[in-house]
């Protein structure tokens, strides 16, 4: 799987992601093996899907595997997609289900406990100390939902109501979890800075 991995290019679509709009007809084109349409979707959503999967699996390698499987599933089921106005919700559903399957499989094969998963967090590719501290704190301090919301908001640029729709939760809940998560992070990071 790692064969596929390579240094990530700066996402040229990131700025556009601030107003992430996916034309649902793109799935029809993908169903017809239109690779340009698939590339368009991939460039638009890859960062968000990666962030979302990483927030669940807390492991970069596993996250990449699941992201790859997610896009393969999209290609395989694009012709079955029924437009409902929320394409990102479908992509996140596939990513979440695959992530959960991955976790279950990992637990069965390696008898890995949740505590061990935390130990798997390694961001060796991050050279900035501060960034490393923030991303580590995000995985240590926040619970799954807080982490998913903050990462999706930071990386995908989705608006809060879009995140709420994608994760299937009320906007008020999403907002409260977002603010609570950030508050916890700030408090933790302040303590870390004070201890230095």
């Amino acid at each position: 799987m790692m064969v596929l991995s390579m240094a990530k290019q700066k996402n040229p679509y990131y700025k556009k992601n601030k107003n992430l709009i996916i034309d649902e007809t793109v799935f029809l084109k993908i169903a017809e093996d239109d690779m340009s349409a698939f590339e368009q979707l991939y460039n638009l959503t890859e960062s968000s899907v990666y962030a979302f999967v990483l927030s669940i699996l807390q492991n970069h390698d596993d996250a990449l595997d699941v992201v790859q499987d997610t896009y393969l599933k999209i290609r395989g089921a694009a012709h079955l997609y029924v437009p409902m106005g929320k394409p990102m919700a479908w992509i996140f559903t596939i990513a979440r289900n695959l992530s959960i399957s991955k976790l279950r499989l990992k637990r069965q094969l390696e008898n890995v406990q949740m505590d061990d998963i935390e130990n798997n967090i390694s961001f060796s590719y991050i050279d900035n100390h501060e960034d490393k501290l923030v991303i580590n704190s995000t995985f240590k301090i926040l619970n799954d939902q807080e982490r998913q919301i903050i990462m999706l908001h930071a990386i995908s640029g989705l608006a809060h109501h879009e995140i709420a729709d994608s994760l299937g939760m009320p906007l008020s809940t999403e907002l409260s979890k977002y603010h609570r998560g950030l508050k916890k992070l700030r408090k933790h990071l302040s303590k870390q800075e004070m201890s230095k």
Partner: protein
Amino acid sequence: MKRMDIEKSIRRSVNKAPSLDFEKLCRMPVEKMSEHDYITRQQDVQSTHHLKKLTAAACYMAILICFAYWFFQYRMPSSTIALDAQSSIEIVVNRKNQVLRIRTLNEDYKKITEELDLKNTDVVQAAKNVLDSMVRLGLLKNSTRTIMLSVENSNIESAKELLLVVGSSIQDDLDEKGLSLEILSRSFVKDEKTSELAEQYSISSGKVNLIENILYLNGSSYSVESLSKMSIDELVEMNNNGSNSSKQYDNISAPDKGKTEFIDVADNTTTGNMSETDNSNIISFIPSENENLTDKTAVHEEIIIDDAEESKDYSVHEEAENISGNYPHEEEISSGNYTGEDNAVIPPSVIIVPEDNLPEEPPEEIKTKNNNSEKALNKQTNGKKEKNNKNKAENNNNNNNNKSVNLNL
């Protein structure tokens, strides 16, 4: 660290992470799925939201219905029980017969409301407590002979039931205390005009109801205002006087007919229902047929004679108090079976007026009033008239003496 700094830091970290090789991803073979599996299944978010909205609406409606039921049963006034002696005190109750509030505008009687906290108390207990307070606070004068218990409800049957329960309870209470008080019981249907008058003169609706009777019987020689200041004893006396003087106007319809019910509290039996006897006359109060008349604490009832024509035949004036012995059964009197034989004990105060002494026609003014009343009640009486006509035919056969009975206190 600011919020934006945290998000920027996370973004930088993720962007630095090694990514997939898109070219290889595109080259990987993909098998087209024939149908969605548990991984790719689409959730109908909209229908879920609709379901949530419907569930919320259903819950809201359920809460609303529960609240409305609770309010209807426990907070909405259903009946008003009034105790009248020198002044009036009203107990407003809900459908569960629990006290909602006590109303009185008399300063002396306000002491009762200040003294007692009867909210949510059962009406029977509340009425007893109010009566106890009236006695204890000296609000019942020694000269008081009669108190009036009236129940007002939108449903006459409910009023009647409540009157029986409260009346019998108060009767027992008075018996225990050895108080020589007569209870005049009245039940009637809620009437906006009566309520307005009660509000205007700070008296109970029951008292207004009695005053309307008196005004009807005495013509326009009195006003509501002047009568509202009188005690129940005085009103009862005036009502009796008015009834005596009205013996000649047998065909006159009572102003509150069709809504007043008179109940013998002691016997728990209804002796007449004006809503069913449209052409009958209110006569007056006599002791209940089963009442021990030697007991001063007698419960009075009003007797209604069904047919006006029959009432022409007899005119009996009767004093209720201190009467002992048997006296003609009301059914006997009203049906004309009573013949005034020697073996029947006629109360000493009963006066039989021969038919010849009665005027045949009421004055023109009264006749007009009566005609108007009859028109208004025509719809209600059609069914009953047929019944009355039947009874009339039978009664005429049985009525050897060709006399009617008019009972007055």
